[in-house]
């Protein structure tokens, strides 16, 4: 039992400890929230993590550089390509590997599509949490399936692609497939996003539940270490794709989606806008795709020089940092992940008090947890 600080709620009598999770329909994985509630008002909350700690960082030290890509897929299983790319970029910078031009474009394309699918899962989760019985959930899954068909045709697997390699990507994408995807993203997909928007942001019940719930200023969020769409909804323009361009982001025309309000509804709007923006970027990437090789020659027994490298990328949930350290052998000396959701989640005890139990799910949906990356 944890000793909660007893912060008095107006008119409260006795508080009750409510354990939400680890097996609970709305925790999106195996998160455990210890909520002290007075009536239905949360007095204090404490997230308990570690139910999915698989020791990925340690396991990575006993595998070769190439094999670790398999593990990075499983870090944040909703944004697989982002993790792969972050890791590959780190190792490539460490070993000084040049990535072919086309491979960079392909990587950017898949990562942006990954941002779409990841946000679709966020959409599915948040609508489920506010009680919409799975209809928007399933609508989001329909579009997601189209993109997943594409993933499978390209990478060979639906969820765990293991597609990026050190120095490029595994398989090239032929132009027919790209064109099909471009048609979908340009024609059908915006229509679906309109529907998603109408069912979530346009719905008066959702507005009454989300407006003014969990309002935080950008300064506060930065202090807590929150990054990603949750921060951008409070007016900050912090986006590594613009600030520190990597991949081919410097050659793309896109805007950073922000909102000034900073409540839960604004976070929904920002994520929906990011879905549209990513779809637009994907179309640009497919149009501007150069030809050429997709994979540089890298030895299977790669031995990067001694040293360490840390890279930052903008994953769908925020800033994903990867540190790799090499001692000159075929295996990493250290592999460390700066998980965006871990820091976002650690702000929950500050965010939740004095909200209702139902608001917990709304605020929860605002930061979009994925336990695989928090626990690693």
């Amino acid at each position, binding site marked *: 039992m944890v000793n909660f600080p007893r912060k008095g709620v107006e008119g409260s009598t006795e508080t009750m400890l409510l354990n939400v999770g680890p097996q609970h329909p709305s925790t999106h*994985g195996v998160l455990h929230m210890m909520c002290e509630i007075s009536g239905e008002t949360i007095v204090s909350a404490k997230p308990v993590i570690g*139910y999915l700690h*698989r020791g990925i960082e*340690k396991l990575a030290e*006993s595998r070769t550089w190439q094999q670790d890509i398999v593990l990075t897929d499983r870090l944040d299983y909703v944004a697989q390509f982002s993790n792969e790319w972050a890791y590959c970029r780190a190792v490539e910078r460490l070993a000084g590997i040049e990535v072919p031009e086309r491979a960079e474009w392909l990587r950017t394309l898949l990562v942006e599509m990954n941002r779409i699918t990841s946000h679709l899962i966020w959409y599915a989760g948040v609508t489920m949490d506010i009680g919409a019985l799975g209809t928007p*959930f399933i609508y989001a*899954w329909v579009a997601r*399936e189209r993109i997943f068909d594409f993933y499978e045709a390209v990478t060979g697997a639906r*969820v765990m692609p293991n597609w990026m390699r050190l120095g490029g990507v595994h398989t090239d994408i032929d132009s027919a497939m790209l064109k099909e995807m471009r048609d979908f993203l340009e024609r059908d997909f915006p229509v679906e996003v309109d529907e998603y928007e109408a069912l979530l942001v346009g719905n008066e019940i959702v507005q009454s539940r989300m407006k003014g719930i969990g309002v935080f200023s950008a300064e506060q969020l930065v202090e807590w270490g929150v990054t990603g769409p949750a921060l951008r909804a409070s007016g900050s323009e912090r986006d590594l794709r613009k600030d520190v361009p990597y991949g081919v982001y410097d050659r793309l025309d896109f805007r950073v989606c922000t909102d000034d309000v900073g409540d839960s509804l604004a976070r929904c709007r920002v994520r929906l806008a990011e879905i549209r923006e990513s779809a637009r970027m994907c179309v640009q990437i497919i149009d501007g795709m150069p030809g050429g090789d997709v*994979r540089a020659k890298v030895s299977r027994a790669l031995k990067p020089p001694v040293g360490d490298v840390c890279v930052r990328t903008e994953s769908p949930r925020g800033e994903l940092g990867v540190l790799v350290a090499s001692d000159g052998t075929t295996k990493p000396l250290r592999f460390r992940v700066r998980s965006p959701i871990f820091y976002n989640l650690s702000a929950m005890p500050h965010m939740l008090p004095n909200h209702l139990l139902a608001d917990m799910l709304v605020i929860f949906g605002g930061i979009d947890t994925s336990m695989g990356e928090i626990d690693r």
Partner: protein
Amino acid sequence: MGVVDDAEQPGFITTTLDKLLRWGRSRSMWPVNAGIACCSLEMMTTGAARYDFDRFGIMFRSSPRQADVMIVPGPITKKMAPIVQRVYNQMAEPRWVIAMGSCAISGGTFVDSYNVLPGAETILPVDIYIPGCPPRPEALLYGCLQLKKLISETSTIGSSRKPMYVPPVLPEEWPLELLGEYDALEAGAVWVQPERDSPPVTPLGDAESAPEDEL
């Protein structure tokens, strides 16, 4: 006649009732909505529009009390194991367990980890194993149909098929030696594997047989 019989020679009413129960149980499998890791995404996909679990009367219940099937969709860590067992114990008999994906079958890629159990069967009686990482939604659907077949083949007469209660095992009871071994995979094959932290037994590009390293 026939209502109360011994298990060896069931009477007409008993067998009819047995048939009815098996029919009902096999056609109404409600899995408990317990997502653990990556495979839960494919589990949700199977419940969504494209594959639609509901066609077979499979419908997710949030409360384990009302569920019949537990799909274990991911690696079971030491911290999660008592929770998984508790969810299983909360389910009403008869209940079944599906181990979905490599992690739930044998620990998968995390079997070397200090914190992951070598498969769900170390703590739960597993009925159906679905290989894949994660299995395709069709594969999960196929596994559920296999379970449906299993249920309709399992006689409801006689003694209980499973222990009624899995005693919750505390994490301390798993010594570290158990983890990282190849123990959950004994099926006649003797595995001689290179030590994980030692250099590979065969160096890359075996001198005689393998050609020059191309990539």
